[in-house]
């Protein structure tokens, strides 16, 4: 079911909690002893009720007081036990959440880029919780279940071994029945799951594009198709629901049989006069009722522990991922904002080289544009400049220091970056702009928004700069989101600037205006501009034309046009055809 290495890791992790586990174990044994003594006491009380004028009230009072004391102590023990278990479980989960979150920021970008967000997120939510719940509640239930079973057995044996044998032999029947039903219904549940998935997919698509459905007047047609999915689901869900709901009545029936058998054998042995009393029979009936419950719980525990271990494996798999290489220490040797790329090579996959032996210099204050068709390596170059990835050959240096010899912080704080993929978070507009400069004043934020030409639309939002925008930018258009991202760099005014398709969703007129703001911002600063629209790179000091990872041409716009090469063709494809109309 599980391997030793995993168990060791789990133990390592819950080491701090082991004393609590021990306490919980002791408490659960104590609880079983205390609570199971109560039916026996009741049995004793019943035995005192022998008939008219035959009741020993002083003895009865003693027993009843004992019952009150035992139930009160059992309750206190149970409370402490449950509270401790909950506490330990929540603490382990919280620690795991924190560790997982912190881990995100130590992982190399290559890991994050190759693993979907939803996947990592489920480590964080479901897995962490299932692990601690399953582990703790599972173990607690296991301890208390075992103690209850053992305790009940001991108490029953002290009363009457022969009747105990009846209980012990018959009870497992209910377990087997429950198992059998679960096994039989498994297929029905998977059919229900797949029908649900099919319907959900259809709903997601149709309701998600409801506006299109409305525009086409296709509501009735969509509904007819939906009905088919709905009917399938209704059938399979009917089956699964019905057959699985047979578990409880079946176990109840088996319990009734056990109960009857205890009543029969118990009554017969009372008549036979083997030392069994009516009170003892009453206690026995109570025990017979209680005996099945822990069995059912334990069979649930095994499944719970199994899924806890599976989750543990996934969480540890994530937490043990190799972290980024440590930061370099030569931060204070960085002399300037000159960027030098020297014989640099890079590949995402070892056997598929992407960039081969690239060289170029970007002196402080120089603007470099990078153009080329999709997949030519433009964005990769940005990844390397920001050291999201490390080069596989040659070097990139800033101010004379290899980027691997300085801290990432020192490198990145020199750059301001605007990407095509806008990232906004849940929060106010002002907070979103201030991402680049925590603690910026409102005046600074407004100034930055004005420079990015975002001030106009922001003031038209319901609460202006205090408007809360939902996850992923909520109702803002792609262009507005880009403006906010541009405002960020306008706010932090970095030494160097990287613009990766920063204006791709903005209309051409606004783009021109922002271009002017960028020009002002980058005046005298080093800048790298990646663009699809060639109109935005015309003024660069040097244009690097890339094609499948190589720089195939370089020069100013005019020089490159004169070459009549690849750049010329690219340029023509964008503007020439537009003119033919």
């Amino acid at each position, binding site marked *: 079911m599980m391997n030793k290495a995993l168990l060791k890791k789990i133990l390592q992790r819950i080491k701090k909690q082991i004393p609590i586990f021990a306490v919980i174990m002791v408490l659960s044994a104590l609880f079983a002893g205390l609570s199971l003594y109560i039916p026996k006491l*009741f049995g004793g*009380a*019943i035995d005192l*009720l*022998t008939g*008219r004028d035959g009741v020993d009230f002083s003895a*009865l009072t003693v027993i009843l007081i004992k*019952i009150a004391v035992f*139930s*009160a102590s059992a309750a206190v023990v149970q409370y402490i036990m449950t509270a401790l278990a*909950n*506490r330990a479980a*929540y603490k382990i989960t*919280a620690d795991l959440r*924190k560790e997982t*979150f912190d881990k995100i*920021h130590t992982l190399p970008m290559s890991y*994050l880029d190759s693993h979907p*967000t939803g996947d*990592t997120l489920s480590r964080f*939510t479901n897995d962490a919780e299932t692990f601690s719940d399953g582990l703790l509640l599972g173990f607690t239930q296991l301890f208390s279940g075992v103690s209850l079973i053992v305790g009940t057995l001991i108490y029953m044996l002290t009363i009457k071994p022969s009747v105990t044998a009846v209980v012990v032999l018959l009870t497992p029947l209910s377990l087997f029945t429950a198992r059998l039903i679960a096994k039989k219904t498994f297929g029905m549940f998977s059919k229900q799951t797949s029908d649900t998935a099919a*319907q959900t997919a*259809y709903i997601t*698509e*149709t309701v*998600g594009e409801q*506006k299109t459905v*409305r525009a086409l007047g296709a509501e*009735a047609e969509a*509904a007819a198709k*939906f009905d088919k999915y709905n009917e399938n689901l*209704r059938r399979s869900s*009917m089956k699964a*629901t*019905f057959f699985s*709901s*047979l578990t409880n*009545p*079946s176990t109840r*029936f088996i319990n*009734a049989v056990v109960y*009857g058998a205890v*009543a*029969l054998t118990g*009554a*017969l042995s009372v*008549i036979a006069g083997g030392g069994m009393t*009516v009170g003892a029979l009453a206690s026995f009936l109570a025990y017979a009722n209680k005996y099945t419950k822990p069995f059912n719980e334990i069979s649930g525990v095994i499944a719970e522990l199994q899924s806890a271990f599976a989750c543990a494996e996934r969480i540890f798999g994530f937490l043990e991922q190799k972290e980024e290489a440590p930061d370099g220490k030569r931060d204070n040797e960085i002399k300037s904002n000159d960027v030098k790329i020297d014989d640099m090579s890079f590949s995402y996959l070892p056997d598929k080289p992407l960039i081969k032996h690239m060289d170029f210099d970007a002196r402080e204050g120089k603007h470099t544009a990078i153009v080329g068709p999709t997949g030519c390596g433009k964005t990769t170059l940005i990844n390397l400049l920001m050291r999201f990835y490390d080069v596989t050959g040659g070097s990139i240096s800033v101010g004379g220091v290899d980027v691997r010899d300085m801290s*990432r912080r020192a490198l990145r704080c020199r750059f301001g*970056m605007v990407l095509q993929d806008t990232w906004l978070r*849940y929060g106010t507009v002002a907070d979103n702009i201030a*991402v680049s400069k925590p603690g910026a004043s409102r005046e600074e934020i407004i100034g930055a928004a004005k420079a990015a030409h975002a001030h106009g639309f922001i003031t038209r939002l*319901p609460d202006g700069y205090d408007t809360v925008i939902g996850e992923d930018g909520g109702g803002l258009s792609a262009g*507005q989101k880009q403006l906010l991202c541009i405002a960020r760099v306008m706010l932090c005014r970095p030494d160097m600037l990287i613009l990766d398709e920063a204006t791709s969703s903005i*209309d051409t007129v606004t783009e021109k205006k922002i271009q002017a703001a960028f020009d002002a911002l980058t005046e005298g600063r080093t800048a790298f501009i990646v663009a699809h629209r060639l*109109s935005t790179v015309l003024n660069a000091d040097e244009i690097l034309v890339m094609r499948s990872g190589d720089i195939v041409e370089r020069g100013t716009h005019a020089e490159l*046009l004169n070459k009549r090469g690849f750049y010329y063709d690219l340029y023509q494809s964008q503007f020439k*055809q*537009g003119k033919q*109309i």
Partner: protein
Amino acid sequence: MKKLLKYLKKYRAQSILAPLLKLCEVALEIAVPFIVSYMIDNGIDKGDKGFVIRCFLLLILFGALGFGFAIVAQYFAAKAATGFSADLRGALFRHIGKLSYSDLDKFGASSLITNMTSDVTRIQNGVNLTLRLLLRSPFVVFGAVAACFVISVQPALRFAAAVPVLLVFVYVIMLFGMKLYGKVQEKLSKTVRAAKENLDGVRVIRAFGIEEREKAEFDKDNKALLKTQLSSGRLSALLNPVTLVIVNIAVAALMYSGAVKVSAGTLTQGEVVAMYNLTVMVLVELIKLADLTINITKALSSAKRVSAVLDAKPSIEYGEKGADDSDVAVKFDDVSLSYGGVEALSHIDLELKKGQTLGITGGTGSGKSSILSLISRFYDADGGKITLFGRDIKEYSEENLRKTVGVVPQRAALFAGTLRENLSFGAGEINDDTLEKALAAACALDFVRDKGGLDCKVEQNGRNFSGGQKQRLCVARALARNPRILILDDSSSALDYATDARMRSSIFEYSKDMTVIIAAQRISSVRNSDAIAVVDDGKIVGYGKHDELLSTCDIYKQIYVSQKGGEDDE
């Protein structure tokens, strides 16, 4: 909430029979302690083994009968619950189909999807559990207490006093528990959101070097979550122990009062055992009841959300008429529109003759799409009047309006199925000839043939087609219905200039008397239109032909200049 009960009506027989059968099962269960009591008083006391065996057989028989009742009850409950949820889902789907764009905006697609999926499933669980269990537990509790009264009133009273105490206790715990649970959920989703944002925005966060701040913020949220979880854990841990104490003390009181009766000779030992067994039953059911209440509460909150959707009256009502005989295809008369209090269009006047082409251009968020939405009546104008072919748009029946106006929306949405199904979606049967002509006019025939023709498979959201291909297919879908007015809402943004131009000219050839309205960012897409409207900040700031606008409209000129690129270099 009552609205939802309507969908249970169809399963009235099942919904009544299921609890009724449960009642029979419970009655049989409650009889068990009585049988045991007789067995003790008449069998054991008199040493009658035959009587004991008969009692045993009766116990088994009752168990078997109860089992039979339960099976039928479960069947009815499952049938009613699954049927109910299927009907509810169907009704909800149709209702969503009637909502207007502003209703859809208000609810949001993702929340509607949640309503249709997990909310309805939760309600189904709630109905199923209610029919099966919620009625069972009170039956057992009240039945057992009543049975105690039948045996002997005074001891029963002692025990019965405990039931309301327990109910109040469970209720109070649940009340606070649900409140805390809600808080836990809220804080949990906050941490999940933070993790999601950090994963999605990891580049930006690293670029600005704010990792430490993010970690600190998360730590704060995480600790707050832990704190709430701990208090909810402490609270829920109370449930079982307190129940245990209350019930045992009540049983002890019952026992004492019973002893007095036994001593007086008015009660037998067997009857006391019966009462004791009945109280054990009550304890078990009360604990089940508490678990159940949690599920029911969840179902109720889902039911509330679903009802809110079903209660929403579609904000647009349609008339019953169709197009009138008029040469003016589209006319806007002083039309204004606002979304949620923010004005999107103000005082728009437009007139477009049949067969003409109108181009609309302007910056991002200027109001181009809003004008188009009004022509399809996706939204209703706040002021002014819109007429299509001489008829007020509000007098059109929905069917006539959709037939008259064909839209190619900005978002090129396709649906899983075949291409043929997609092209004729919502328009009934359209013959292949028409479909192929439409595809040809949309410059889509070539790649469609490559993919296997009209029967080629379209994956969910059309993800097996590129953005440009999807746009062309959506154009074909609109053309295939032969609308009198065709609306193209930035529907060639993913096409290169040449294909864009080719598509436009073939659309004009496809139908000469079709009125076409094109909204686009690209000047090249609108420059050949009969008239161009320039929109800025919700107002029309220029109207006329391309050459006129170049000299009369500053904004138009700016857009033009910003796009013409290196033309002058040639």
